[in-house]
């Protein structure tokens, strides 16, 4: 047994933020204390710490905190789902290609090159435009379909090297089927790098979704998302800077935490 490494303070912080996010996701409405859609035109652009509005209100008198917490839910839900889709497509494809590099490997290379030849953002915008309606599933599917090569490339490369390991060959020499070979010997070897990749990809998806929302092609019109909040706050940046700062800082915090967590995972898996 190797001795346990002491837990870094940063990790505790990240764990705290993660737990906080989880609480917000589950109890968001209760924590915000009010409906994020409720407008109060008498109380527009109220500063933070105004009575009843911890983070102030926006140009329509909507509570910023309530919108922020609702936005977190949206961000995490879309980022998780998009990561899951990219993970499933990319990993499956990468594994199949690694098993038969001559046939499947070539077609995977073609498809990934084709997908990655377009700037991902332009591709995402195009796909959403073609799909027509903006909504949860169109965003999630688009992000997943545009970014799966990230997974397939890593899985392909790692699984190929795993397949050349003597112990995989030795297991095949005991008469195991390809599926069992994957499940028992190849997949466990992929867990360290895949888990790190998932965390980093999640952070990327948060940014990507916010960027789409910022452009107004992500969430449905009027939805409280961080990207939409940033976009709407542009006109009031000097008069009401908290409208910009709140979602921006929230996003930075979440992404930094995801990266710290990912780094920790990466170090732990070495």
């Amino acid at each position: 047994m190797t001795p346990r490494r002491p837990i870094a303070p940063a990790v505790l912080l990240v764990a705290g933020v993660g737990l906080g996010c989880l609480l917000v996701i589950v109890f968001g409405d209760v924590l915000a204390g009010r409906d994020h859609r409720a407008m109060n035109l008498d109380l527009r652009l109220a500063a933070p710490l105004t009575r009843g509005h911890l983070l102030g209100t926006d140009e329509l008198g909507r509570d910023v905190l309530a919108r922020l917490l609702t936005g977190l839910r949206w961000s995490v839900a879309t980022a998780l789902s998009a990561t899951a889709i990219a993970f499933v497509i990319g990993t499956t494809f990468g594994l199949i290609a690694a098993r038969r590099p001559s046939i499947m490997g070539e077609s995977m290379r073609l498809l990934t090159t084709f997908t990655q030849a377009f700037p991902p953002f332009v591709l995402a915008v195009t796909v959403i435009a073609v799909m027509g309606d903006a909504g949860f599933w169109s965003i999630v599917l688009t992000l997943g379909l545009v970014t799966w090569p990230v997974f397939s490339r890593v899985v392909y490369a790692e699984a190929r090297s795993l397949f050349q390991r003597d112990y995989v060959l030795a297991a095949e020499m005991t008469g195991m089927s390809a599926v069992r070979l994957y499940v028992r010997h190849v997949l466990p070897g992929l867990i360290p790098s895949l888990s790190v990749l998932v965390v980093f990809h999640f952070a990327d998806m948060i940014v990507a979704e916010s960027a789409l929302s910022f452009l107004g092609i992500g969430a449905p019109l009027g939805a409280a998302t961080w990207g939409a909040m940033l976009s709407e706050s542009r006109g009031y940046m000097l008069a009401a800077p908290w409208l910009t700062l709140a979602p921006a800082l929230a996003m930075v915090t979440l992404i930094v935490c995801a990266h710290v967590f990912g780094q920790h995972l990466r170090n732990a898996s070495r």
Partner: protein
Amino acid sequence: MTAPVLAVSGLSIRADEQVLVPGLDLTIGQGEILGMVGASGSGKTISAFALSRLLPDALTQSGRIELEGRRIDDLDERGMRDIRGGRIGMVFQDPLSSFNPVRTIGSILIESIRRHQRLGRADARRLAIETLAEMRLPGANASVDAYPHTLSGGQRQRAMIGLALVNQPALIVADEPTTALDPTIQLQILALLRRQAERAACLFITHDIAAAAAICDRLVVMQAGRIVESGAADQVLTRPEHPFTRELLSHAPGGGRFR
């Protein structure tokens, strides 16, 4: 004489246009150890893998392979999986890298047992322990739950031979089984192989002609994918006819004086 356990005729292996093994003929009888010696790159290992039809994608093989009187060169993949580990057991060169580092020795053996024999988990475990004990692995009861890195090189190779033999195969293919071990352990492992090969046919692949001399009944000498000399081990070692065999012998420790 009874029919040979393994009969190979015209086995050829090619990579695209390049022919690596032009046509190999081999027979091995029950209880016999056939030594295949030759320099690195002479086609020994790929020939061994071709017997189990486990060549890398880039290589293709053709030729007739008969195991226990049954053709296996035209079997489908499902049929071959029953052969691998069931009728052919393979001992690899490096026992450390040939065991999954995150799995116990026993779990690998049990997996193979349950793949080929109708045994429950407890019975398979018992058989795994029995097999390890038979391989003279000290403390077989504990070793079954040991991870590969906690065993010594010799112990690992004993476990590897146990894995190859656990389903009582007709053919044992040992690919450089002693190369990664130190000399005293090498002798023990050779003795173990010699003893275990009694009940099967054994193809022993090595570039170490001294190891081959120690346990083989017959020898074939390979050079560039071809058998350049074959015959009874004594004869090949004491009266080599092909210049390449003489060269191999002259590089062996002791100047090639065996037996």
